[in-house]
């Protein structure tokens, strides 16, 4: 009797106390991922501090100095309305990052909850949820996004909501997988038999175990969301003027490809580097996870 | 004086590990005569597979290296042979049968095609002729309805039958030497006996020399002429099979014999020798067996032991070889 009680108490301990420390240790060894993290922090800071860093008013038109080459008074040149590209890029970065964050937030919320339900509810509910995610995943994502935006009307909020919905199945699968594998494990068996209510099991066992793969997926999804936002804005279906994102700056600059290449080169470079940083960070985080945690993803 | 078919001399192999290059084989020497069957015996981890792979030139190129020694097949040096020349020899003059019959055949190709591919590689000729040869060897190794079964995929065979297919593949070009690395370990006891019978029959039919790798001395008695006993990357005893059983000359061989299940009532479960093989890179000084040896003396702890030639032929790597009277089996 006492023996089993002790077993159960041990079984209830939070999962793998050393896991987090090991994860941090492994991650510190990933130089590239660390560099990506530093870059992302800098970009976020730069966009947050845009009012301090901007050399010009991003919206101020100056028809006297349109399409100026980089250098001189304008680090990255000016656009077709004489607006300072550097200052615009700072503010546009804000829009791009916030948009990506919105999409990821939607994907997480719409993914985690059905994932938990699919993992915990009976086979029938699980089957329905999984078939729905299958169906959602059988649409080409960008086509679906374009269709939704077409129906709801072009706006950045609509676009990002749709992108979030489209990426939600990844989180559904991840969370469901974690729940299913954790349900098998003894410590949850034990808490169950003692009568720990399901919400506590979720908070104490499922979410902590799913956290690391979730963070990985968040990083990779942020990369995809940024690309999707840029694409939709390039098509004119995302951010609407006078607001700008990096994608819509390229859309505008595209008309001057031959005469003012800097209008497309710089914002594109920023998108590429930021997306690359999210991808590298995600890969690095995943590689830092032990096999024991990675299983969930 | 002509050399034996296979001569391995002073072979040293190192593997790259987290702690740098670690020696795994230390001065391994033995010979195999034409048509002879030699048992390579030792507990798991003693270096039998590494020795076999070295002979075939199959050690991983990046993470291992041969630092000393010579391997000669038919008088031809194999160490340092260019890759393409070695490839041409493999499957033609020497071949290997592996332990894991379930995973050692390509699941995506018909077994007949896999054998025919080897035949065409070494013998050339038409696809049809190679296929005919594949069917022929399959029926030689006792696959019923070989004509039809050649069209099957590996997963459609049982473990024992797959091992027969592997033997057929290895023998398809009638090599002079086959190394069989624990070919029966993964099989049921009754199937083990059948595969052993088959190997013996094949050896007699093709006149192939066989290196039979095993951790089971009982099997060695069944099939081998001579035995080479390995421990911790070294050869510790070489002897004819009868002499080895009756008068082992190394305490490790004695321990193996006493751990051997009775030949009459083989349970399939091995009795074990107390203690364990030291891991590569952490070899004890002196005699590598001394931490587990029941006959050790102080000198064994710090004197590296050389192989002592024995009057009756063979060698023993034991300091006390001349003053010990060891127990044989039965």
């Amino acid at each position, binding site marked *: 009797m006492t023996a089993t009680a002790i077993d159960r108490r041990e079984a209830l301990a939070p999962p793998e106390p050393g896991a987090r420390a090991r994860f941090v240790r492994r991650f510190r060894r990933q130089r590239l991922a660390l560099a990506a993290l530093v870059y992302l922090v800098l970009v976020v800071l730069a966009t947050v501090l845009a009012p301090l860093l901007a050399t010009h008013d991003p919206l101020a038109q100056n028809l006297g100095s349109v399409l100026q080459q980089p250098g001189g008074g304008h680090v990255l040149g000016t656009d077709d309305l004489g607006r300072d590209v550097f200052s615009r890029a700072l503010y546009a970065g804000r829009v791009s990052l916030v948009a990506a964050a919105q999409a990821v937030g939607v994907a997480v919320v719409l993914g985690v909850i059905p994932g938990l339900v699919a993992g915990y509810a009976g086979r029938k509910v699980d089957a329905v949820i999984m*078939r729905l995610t*299958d*169906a*959602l995943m*059988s*649409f*080409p*994502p*960008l*086509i679906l996004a*374009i*269709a*939704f*935006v*077409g*129906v*709801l009307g072009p706006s950045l909020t609509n676009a990002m909501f749709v992108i979030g919905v489209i990426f939600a199945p990844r989180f559904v699968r991840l969370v469901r997988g974690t729940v299913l594998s954790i349900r098998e494990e003894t410590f949850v068996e034990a808490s169950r038999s003692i009568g720990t209510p399901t919400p506590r099991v979720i908070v104490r066992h499922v979410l902590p175990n799913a956290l690391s793969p979730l963070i990985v997926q968040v990083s990779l999804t942020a*990369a995809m969301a940024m*690309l999707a936002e*840029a*694409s939709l804005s*390039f*098509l004119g279906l995302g951010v609407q003027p006078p607001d700008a994102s990096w*994608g819509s700056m*390229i859309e505008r600059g*595209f008309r001057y*490809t031959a005469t003012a*290449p800097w209008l*497309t080169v710089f914002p*594109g470079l920023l*998108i*590429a580097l930021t*997306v*690359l940083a999210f991808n*590298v960070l995600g*890969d690095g985080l995943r590689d830092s996870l032990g096999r024991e945690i990675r299983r969930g993803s | 004086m002509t050399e034996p078919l296979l001569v391995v001399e002073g072979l040293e192999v190192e593997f790259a590990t987290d702690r740098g290059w670690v020696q795994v084989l230390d001065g391994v020497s033995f010979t195999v005569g034409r048509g002879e069957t030699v048992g390579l015996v030792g507990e798991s981890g003693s270096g039998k597979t590494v020795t076999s792979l070295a002979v*075939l030139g*199959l050690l991983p190129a*990046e993470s291992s290296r041969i630092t000393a020694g010579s391997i000669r097949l038919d008088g031809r040096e194999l160490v340092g042979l260019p890759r*393409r020349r070695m*490839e*041409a020899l493999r*499957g033609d003059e020497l*071949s290997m049968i*592996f332990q894991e019959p379930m*995973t*050692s*055949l*390509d*699941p995506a*190709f018909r077994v007949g095609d*896999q054998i025919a*591919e*080897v035949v065409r*590689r*070494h013998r050339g000729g038409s696809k049809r002729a190679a296929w005919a040869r594949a069917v022929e060897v399959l029926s030689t190794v006792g696959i019923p309805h070989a004509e039809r079964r050649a069209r099957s*995929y590996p*997963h459609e065979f049982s473990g024992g039958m797959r091992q027969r297919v*592997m033997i057929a593949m*290895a023998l398809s070009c009638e090599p002079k030497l086959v190394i069989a690395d624990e070919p029966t370990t993964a099989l049921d006891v009754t199937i083990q006996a059948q595969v052993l019978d088959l190997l013996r029959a094949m050896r007699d039919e093709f006149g192939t020399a066989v290196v039979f790798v095993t951790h089971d001395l009982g099997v060695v008695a069944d099939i081998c002429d001579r035995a080479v006993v390995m421990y911790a990357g070294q050869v510790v005893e070489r002897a004819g099979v009868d002499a080895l059983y009756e008068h082992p000359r190394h305490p490790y061989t004695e321990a193996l014999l006493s751990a051997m299940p009775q030949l009459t009532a083989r349970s399939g479960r091995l009795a074990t020798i107390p203690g364990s093989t030291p891991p590569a890179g952490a070899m004890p000084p002196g005699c590598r067996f001394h931490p587990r040896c029941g006959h050790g003396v102080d000198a064994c702890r710090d004197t590296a032991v050389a192989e002592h030639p024995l009057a009756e032929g063979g060698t023993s790597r034991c300091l006390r070889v001349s003053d010990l009277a060891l127990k044989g089996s039965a």
Partner: protein
Amino acid sequence: MLRYTVRRVLMMVPLLVLVSLGVFALVLMIPGDPAITIAGENATEAQIDATRERLGLNDPVLVQYAAWAGHALTGDLGSSLFSNESVTGAIAGRFPVTLALTLAAMLIALLIAVPAGVVAALRRGRWQDRGATLFASVGISLPNFWVGILLIMAFALAFPIFPAVGYTPISEGVGAWARGLVLPGITLGTAVAAEITRQLRGSLTDTLQQDFIRTARANGLSARAVVLRHGLKNAAVPVVTVIGFQVGFLLGGSVIVERVFGLPGLGDLAIRAVLQRDIPMIQGIVVVAALIVMLVNLAVDLSYGWLNPKVRQA
């Protein structure tokens, strides 16, 4: 194999029903009264009523769905709200352009990815591997419209080797047709190449460590035969899966690439439909895109039967 195929095809039916429901539901999602949206902000009451009647919006939703799905099954996806052109006809007219573009992209992707993935797996940890891995990371991170614009700057403006915009039908010469597809194909294919390289490197590396590879080597097969025959065929299943996934991505990407290079394909049609809120056209394009993805997935699943004989009997 036949039973496997039939079962697999039947499995598509519920998915198709779900997809069609989703596509149909697009109309229901229009904020406010769809009849007003469709008839236009300034339409008169009568015009709006007429529109509602024409679209069957007065019927119960299920009846509307049944009518729409019934027509769709016969290949009738309705007609454009603006040109009265049949949706099916418009899609059929644009389809060859998008097909040519996606095939070109896939071809270019494979031409890059197969050698890159093989070399990376064979030279694991060396510079070739690092290069391929870097390409894979960067390739999936580049916005494809930006790649397209850079290519135009380099190979159409600075060095005018390829046309910057426009599509030459194959009937006007295969050479001109192919030349016009090079830059769009590279633009669309880069990310796919990166994805396939990554997958092939991983799965070939795993395969080359399998026991049967050692058996093949022990019997003297050349390094080439081992990698190209036994390695690639066994490594193919996850790679083919990824290729299948990429088709959806290619269809989406073609919208953008067609915009950049001014190609009159499905993507171009989609953008027009979206900007005009031409709902039947949008529905039609989504249905066709989903159908293509499903058919590709079917082909992928059936290819498993060839690649992995075990599947055939399952």
